[in-house]
């Protein structure tokens, strides 16, 4: 309903739009009185996915020069902030767009060339955009992959008024037209280039073999980068000695509660998520039956201080996400296959989903947990490399009503990274570690939802005999 209305038709008959009211508090909602905008792009370039292979691309920038604009497009800076604050930060960015064929990446016109030049920069760049109409911000779109973005506004032209600051590594990899995109990403990762910048370079069609370069919608490039880097790290992890004990890490942020178990076995990875009623995707926000979560300590600043009794979005499909079958946690249970825990209205859980892979890795897409799977896997692999150990990693995530707006897949990646920075609890057996998880988790059955977890619990090794 909300997507049909966008706050303008009063379809909910409340006479006002709860969501916009909430969001507007944190962002400038006025129409600007000029078509020409000058501001510091963090830098940020957004590529939409609608109309593929013809997509919209354009820089995002605040309508003014600001200090430390980089943080407007850097998820690591947002972790720990309340949901409203993240929305506020993202709401300060205007999004401009022009239509481009994805195949034009290697033969850019001047608009695209300017976008690409902007993407190369690791620091904010003063940018001038002339819009076709006076820009007005009135809504953000949200999904589980990308950070919140404003709707695209057609631009007439753009110009960088400052030289982009291009790290040498970025320059080398993007100007090499013989290296495959995956190898290029790995080189950038090795050179300590930021994940967000890698996603930006991939999106803007600056990676890969010369003529094969394509523009990649931001949403896809995020998971592509997580996946490619994860695969590379796996190649290393497989040769590391095994961990000696069971480790349990915990962390939470913005209504996302994580339990991460590292088990002394060969590398493999499984992730299970329980979406509670009242969480954004449950589509059942009006009956908030969530149990209290007092047993959790708040690691992050979270948004729990705002005690929400209802989800402002009656329609769980956020704008910009319609009913695509790959949308994560789609509230239609026929799409979220393998969800036996589906919605017993009184128990407070909406659905539980799992994906996993063995030592050799996976070939197909993790289509139940989707982007979160790859983001979490990357976080775990980085940690294993740091420990110089291999292990089987089991992640269990509960999403509560506190996560009332999906902020993007960075929430998962950064929360997993932060949790793994913490001090783990140590156990001699997997069973004792699992009982610790079930003692804290709200959906105790969900912990054992996946066949992967059940088989790890029951499968003996030859070393046991």
């Amino acid at each position: 309903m909300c997507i049909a209305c966008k706050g303008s038709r009063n379809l909910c008959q409340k006479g006002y739009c709860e969501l916009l009211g909430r969001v507007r508090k944190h962002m400038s909602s006025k129409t600007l009185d000029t078509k020409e905008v000058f501001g510091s792009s963090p830098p940020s370039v957004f590529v939409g996915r609608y109309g593929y292979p013809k997509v919209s691309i354009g820089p995002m920038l605040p309508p003014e020069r600001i200090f430390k604009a980089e943080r407007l497009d850097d998820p690591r800076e947002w972790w720990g902030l309340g949901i409203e604050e993240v929305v506020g930060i993202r709401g300060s960015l205007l999004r401009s767009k022009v239509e481009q064929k994805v195949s034009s990446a290697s033969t850019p016109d001047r608009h695209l060339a300017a976008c690409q030049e902007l993407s190369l920069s690791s620091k904010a760049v003063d940018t001038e955009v002339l819009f076709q109409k006076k820009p007005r911000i009135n809504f953000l779109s949200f999904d589980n992959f990308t950070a919140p973005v404003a709707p695209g506004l057609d631009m007439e032209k753009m110009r960088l008024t400052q030289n982009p600051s291009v790290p040498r590594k970025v320059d080398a990899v993007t100007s090499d037209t013989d290296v495959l995109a995956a190898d290029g990403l790995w080189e950038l990762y090795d050179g300590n280039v930021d994940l967000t910048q890698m996603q930006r370079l991939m999106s803007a069609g600056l990676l890969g073999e010369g003529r094969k370069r394509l523009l990649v919608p931001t949403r896809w490039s995020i998971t592509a980068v997580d996946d490619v880097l994860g695969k590379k790290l796996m190649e290393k992890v497989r040769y590391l000695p095994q961990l000696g004990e069971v480790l349990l890490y915990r962390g939470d942020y913005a209504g996302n509660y994580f339990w991460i178990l590292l088990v002394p076995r060969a590398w493999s990875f499984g992730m299970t998520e329980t979406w509670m009623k009242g969480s954004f995707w449950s589509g059942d926000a009006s009956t908030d039956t969530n149990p209290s979560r007092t047993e959790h300590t708040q690691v992050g600043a979270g948004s729990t201080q705002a005690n929400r009794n209802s989800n402002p979005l009656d329609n769980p499909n956020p704008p910009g996400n319609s009913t695509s079958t790959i949308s994560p946690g789609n509230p239609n249970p026929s799409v979220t296959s393998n969800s036996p825990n589906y919605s017993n209205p009184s128990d407070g859980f909406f659905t539980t989903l799992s994906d996993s892979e063995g030592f050799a890795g996976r070939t197909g897409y993790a289509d139940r947990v989707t982007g979160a799977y790859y983001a979490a896997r990357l976080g775990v692999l980085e940690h294993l490399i740091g420990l110089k150990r291999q292990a089987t990693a089991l992640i269990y995530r509960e999403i509560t009503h506190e996560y009332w707006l999906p902020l993007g897949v960075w929430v998962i990646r950064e929360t997993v990274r932060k949790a793994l920075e913490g001090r783990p609890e140590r156990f001699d057996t997997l069973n004792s570690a699992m009982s610790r998880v079930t003692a804290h988790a709200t959906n105790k059955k969900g912990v054992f939802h996946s066949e992967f977890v059940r088989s790890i619990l029951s499968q003996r090794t030859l070393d046991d005999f």
Partner: protein
Amino acid sequence: MFKAKIRSEVLKEVIDVIATQVDEVKFTITTSGINAKAVDPAHVAMVDITLDKGAFEEFKAKDTEMGINIEKLREVVKLTKSGETIAMELDEDHNRLVLSLGNITRNMSLVDTAGMSDPKIPGLNLAAKVTLELDELRKGLRAAEPVADHIALIADENNFELRADGDTDFSSLTLVKDQLVELSCKEKQRSLFSLDYFLNMIKAVSSAQNITLEFGNDFPVSMDFTFADSKGKVSFLLAPRIEND
């Protein structure tokens, strides 16, 4: 020193069997034949394969080792048809295996065996021993596949059963003593196994007619068979699953 000729279908079966566990393997070569032991990365299954010198068309060797990348060797075997002969010679000076097949010569660099330790084979005393036709076993596994992700092997004095219990469905292969090649079991034995692992190993067997299973209550199962006119011996070992309450 190692110099031998082998029929391509025999080498292919060796490769298929080892590939169920590892990508790289160390062959231990003696004057009487070759042997390899490999355990899968999760330490859930292992294989012990021996090829007597009689399985080769020609065989000359002194005690040595060679580390082989199994997929590389598979590529070479793919170039041949069943019945053709492949000649192998270990070139220790250059650390490579020289393969000749028809008019093709292929030099294959060896894998360093320094880091490849021999897997420890658990000493087991398994109470049930069942020999049956491989085709019967295959059929039982095929019936179980859509039903569950694990199977139970059950034997008593007179029967052998392979059953799969799913959430709603069930399948069973039941053979009485007369239908089996051999059954020796005094008390009822039952053990549970991952169907994935089981199938993965059985799929690698191509020429054997009978297979011998030995298992005991919540103990591993060993699966033994011979190939290449009984000159080749394979023993798979698979750890059980144990249900938690």
